[in-house]
């Protein structure tokens, strides 16, 4: 290879490397700083991120400013109304086009039932009251105040809204499943195969709801606390399904006058895995 050609190739190679690297570096300089201080993405630089950072320093204090949606689930009320658990699950899964793949391995679920031992594995199950073991606990995304999944996501495809809801951007998700490893509640599902597909002539999504997008394979999904419905002043689908049983109470945890705050003040509730510092926004009356 003659000298000129080698030189040319070297320069060409270097400029190619620089060309690939430069936009990223620039992007980082311009956006990175802003986003490093607020832990949620999509240009959403509301106070929440700073609050969260403060929360870390101040020994796990909960965020007091701004909205933070949360929910209380009264397990006994569910138990006294047969079929209510399934009604909630169906209401959610039908609304959000959650596919029923039909096997455990590829399963996608946003809200589902678990026995006490599995919803609260870190609690002792020794000589627990027998009723407890027959109860069904609805479990879903906890919309943690300090969500490990958001911390783990390399693209901000999962991020925390200003109202505390942990959201998913299905179009940005690269499907690395780091968030699934990070979630201590197993709340996240991956589309191992095309959810729009079918098996034996039966589509995975029985009836598509045109108001919410179906997903493509290779992205992660989970409960979104019905963020879209909340914007319209509606309650989440599962809460709506419980009707006036009060089995689920939903509202702003940071508003002392909200119904959910009043219930939390007056009743003993537990959260799932509170020791991990994720600060779940879903509470249980058992």
């Amino acid at each position, binding site marked *: 290879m003659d000298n000129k050609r080698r030189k040319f190739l070297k320069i060409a190679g270097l400029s190619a*490397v620089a060309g690939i690297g430069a*936009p*990223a570096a620039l*992007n*980082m300089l311009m*956006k*990175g700083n802003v*986003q*490093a201080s607020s*832990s949620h*993405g999509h240009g959403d630089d509301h106070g929440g991120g700073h609050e969260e950072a403060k929360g870390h320093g101040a020994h796990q204090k909960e965020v007091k400013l701004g909205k933070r949606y949360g929910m209380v689930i009264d397990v006994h009320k569910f138990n006294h109304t047969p079929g209510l658990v399934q009604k909630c699950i169906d209401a959610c899964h039908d609304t959000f086009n959650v596919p029923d793949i039909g096997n*455990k*391995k*590829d*399963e*996608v679920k946003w809200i589902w039932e*678990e026995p006490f*031992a*599995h*919803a609260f*594995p*870190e609690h002792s*199950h020794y000589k627990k009251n027998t009723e407890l073991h027959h109860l069904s606990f609805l*479990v879903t995304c906890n919309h943690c105040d300090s969500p*490990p999944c958001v*911390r*783990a*996501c*390399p*693209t*901000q*495809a999962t991020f925390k809204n200003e109202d505390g809801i942990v959201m998913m951007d299905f179009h*940005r*998700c*690269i*499907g*690395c*499943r*780091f968030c*699934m*490893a*990070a*979630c*201590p*509640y*197993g709340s996240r*599902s*991956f*589309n*191992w*195969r*095309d959810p729009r597909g079918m098996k034996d002539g039966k589509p995975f999504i029985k009836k598509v709801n045109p108001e919410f997008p179906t997903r*493509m*394979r*290779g*992205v*992660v999904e989970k409960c979104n606390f019905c963020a879209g419905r909340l914007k319209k002043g509606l309650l989440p689908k599962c809460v709506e399904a419980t009707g006036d049983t009060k089995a689920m109470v939903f509202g702003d945890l940071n508003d002392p006058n909200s119904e959910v705050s009043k219930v939390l003040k007056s009743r003993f509730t537990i959260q799932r895995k509170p020791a*991990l*510092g*994720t600060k779940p926004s879903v509470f249980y009356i058992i």
Partner: protein
Amino acid sequence: MLEKALQGNAKYWSWVGFLLSMMGMGALCYVLQFNYGLGLTGMSRDVSWGLYISQFTFLVGVAASAVMLVLPYYLHNYKEFGRITILGEFLAIASVSMCLMFIMADLGQPMRALNVVLHPTPHSILFWDMIVLNGYLFLNVVVGWVALNSEYKGTHPPKWVYPLVYLSIPWAVSIHTVTAFLYCGLPGRHFWMTAILAPRFLASAFAAGPALLIILVMIVRKFSSFDAGDKAINKLVTVIIYAGLMNFFFVGLELFVGYYSNIPGHIHTLDYLFFGLADHDTGVIYNNLMPWMRVSVIMGVISLCLLGCKKTRNNSGILFVACGLMFFSLWIDKGLGLVLGGFVPSPLDYIVEYVPSIPEIFITLGVWCTGFFILTILYKVAISVKTEAERVS
């Protein structure tokens, strides 16, 4: 220099042909996976990472281990490593390439991989892993190629390359530390959540990498006139022994902390890996990794004995076997047990076992063969240049 890879005997070409055919098989299976989705693999909702990520984790270690050559040779001017260092650097290039391919194979939406760059997210460890891995690849490609090129031309390496060499030393440590951080910063994954994960990763890497390198050097010696020298090999054996001992010491510390504290979360995965874990509800015992893990321990101990004893390690046949045992022992430990075990039990305390699917195994083999293809080409070039340079001088 690259043209040297185009000259070889029948054995060389049949080896290259074998690699290419395995790569073709892997590519074919990847097309299947790409069209069907990752459901084609054995991964599931509960074990959401499988062979791809576990191989990635293991290979980051092999890549990092090049520092065990670069550091003594460049920083301490340890001349005996003069002929072997380039082989270590090229092994690092092949390993990092495999790492990147395994990550791509694992993505649900590989076409969006650049989102990691387009939406940089400093609070995600994966973002940093992308930076350190690509940086390390770049450093090794530049340093290795420039060093070899100057040997080809019979000159000294240019001065500007030395800062990159020195940078590559802490950088090597960083790639495996950051990779450990992927795991040990996740709340609720007790098996991974240990501050000793990064040091343990490094220790096992510094044993597994040099073990593979000795195997490669011995193969090279058999098939070419290039000899890295017994002194270099013996020094590497010392490195393997100490790093291997450290690794087993660290594993012992994990066992102590788990079983002495008696905290269930710390014990479950260890139980699952070494003794089998019983399901609370059904009493069924799950243990599909247990035989592997036990074999890993036995291989590691035998290897350390063979390497530690002067009589056995001076026999090149036994040395070859001992290095193979060490490599496979640590491959099982990190390339299977560490990643797969961490998902058992699931966050909701279910036991779901993972078995890779056939296409998944072929894709994995395909990536390994691509790595070895890169390695073969680079070694062919390096060895041709080195033997020629020595003939001239």
